[in-house]
């Protein structure tokens, strides 16, 4: 059967549209595969009903990497359609195994690659470009209006850093998993994800160090050694240490900022 991958690719953007606590992305998944199911079972309305019910099973994966699960499930669906009635239960069981194993692995890889690596990496790219065009947004907001275009380019560049790999993987992953087998885990192990994550994280750490040093330079060099600057630096260092410590305790930085505000307010009232 000739699969219209582009149609499926477009529909993957709606995967999470009916997200719910019972079966998570199940309706979204059905929406994605529905045209294929209609095509596969066009002369078998009873089997179509069963396939729809099957695709409404619980499903949860990373929105981008879920394509590695979808392609493999479509392939297995084609296999089910051609299977003789006696072998049907075992093929349906196989479909469920593929669905669970690929979705879980893709979720784990996708969350690490996209949410925990590429997203912060693209922020680093944004801040670097802003610094490169002399927009010191971390320090002040008094920037000449002519620089709006440069800032917009920086934002677009950071979006591209995230979206180009995401779009390539959505497209390639769908085909790879459709053509894949158990031996290459439905295309999931065609790419060395851990190596990519490691390289991006190491590069991200180095670039963040650079941003940190340059930010200190922009914020404090040339300010002189006044009591105000010394107080700022002392408090800054204490909160940086505190921030690393709260990270170990899994306390989000948002709460650290709120705590800082509370401490300063109490100090202001007391003094």
């Amino acid at each position, binding site marked *: 059967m000739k699969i219209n991958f582009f149609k499926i690719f477009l529909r993957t*953007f*709606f995967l*999470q*549209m*009916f*997200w*719910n*606590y*019972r*079966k*998570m992305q199940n*309706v*979204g998944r*059905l*929406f994605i595969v*529905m045209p294929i199911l209609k095509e596969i079972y066009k002369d078998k309305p009873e089997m179509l009903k069963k396939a*729809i019910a099957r695709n*409404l099973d619980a499903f949860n994966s990373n929105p981008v990497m879920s394509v590695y699960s979808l392609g493999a499930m479509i392939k297995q669906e084609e296999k089910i359609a051609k299977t003789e009635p006696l072998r049907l239960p075992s093929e349906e069981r196989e479909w469920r195994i593929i669905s669970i194993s690929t979705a879980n692995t893709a*979720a784990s890889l996708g969350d690490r690659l996209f949410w*925990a690596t590429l*997203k912060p*990496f693209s*922020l680093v790219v944004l801040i670097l470009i802003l610094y490169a065009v002399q927009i010191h*947004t*971390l320090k002040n*907001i008094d*920037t000449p209006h002519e620089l*709006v275009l440069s*800032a917009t380019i920086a934002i677009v560049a*950071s*979006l591209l850093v*995230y*979206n180009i790999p*995401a779009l390539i993987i959505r497209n390639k992953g769908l085909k790879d998993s459709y053509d894949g087998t158990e031996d290459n885990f439905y295309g999931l192990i065609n790419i060395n994800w851990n190596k990519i994550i490691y390289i991006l*994280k*190491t590069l*991200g*750490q180095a670039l*963040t160090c650079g*941003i*940190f040093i340059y*930010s200190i330079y922009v914020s404090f060099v040339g300010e002189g050694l006044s009591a105000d600057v010394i107080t*700022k630096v002392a*408090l*800054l260092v204490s*909160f*940086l240490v505190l*921030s*690393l410590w709260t*990270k170990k305790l899994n306390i989000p*930085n948002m709460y650290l*900022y*709120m705590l*800082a*505000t509370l401490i*300063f*307010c109490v*100090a*202001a009232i007391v*003094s």
Partner: protein
Amino acid sequence: MLELLIACGVLALLEMDTTYFGQFLLSRPTCTGAIMGYLCGDFFLGLQLGVFAELLFIDFVPIGGVVPPSGAICAGTSVIISAYFGADLYFSFFLGLILSWVFTWVEKSLRRYRSKLLPEVEAAIIDEKVSPFQIIFQSFVMEYLAVFVFVLTATSLFGPFLYHIGDKIPQSIHVAFKFSYFLVPWIGLSMLFVSFSTKPKVD
């Protein structure tokens, strides 16, 4: 008023990118902040609030159905409150954070509501009384309206309030908020550095 409605409408649309449609990162606080800043007449104020919000929210990862506070809501509402209503930047940022946290309750309620609807929806789809597209479309409209109403209510209630009480707040409290606002990028950069750690996490 029309400007506010447009800003809230765009913010609600951008927020949809967080979970429901696309995940193109248009809802990242930096992007949302800059767009809202442009719409409210102060692009660089929006950009700064967006970058600060993103640095603070970088350690929230939406895995496994967890609903973290929305960075888009934080950046968007704080820009509207600051640039449109004229409240102080550091107060509006703090309020934006609280609103993003309150918004998780709205989001969880919508997810719970959809969970309740699910058996009915599934039966209707299987019986071909309704198509998955119709369900998806209705879900999109419902989510969009909920976000829009939340954003509009929150900003039109707290924006004027924060602007009017700004002058009445003691100067020392202004200094305290200003100072903690100054700390945000530094706390955020340290978190950004840690987020790139290649060491396996041990809980």
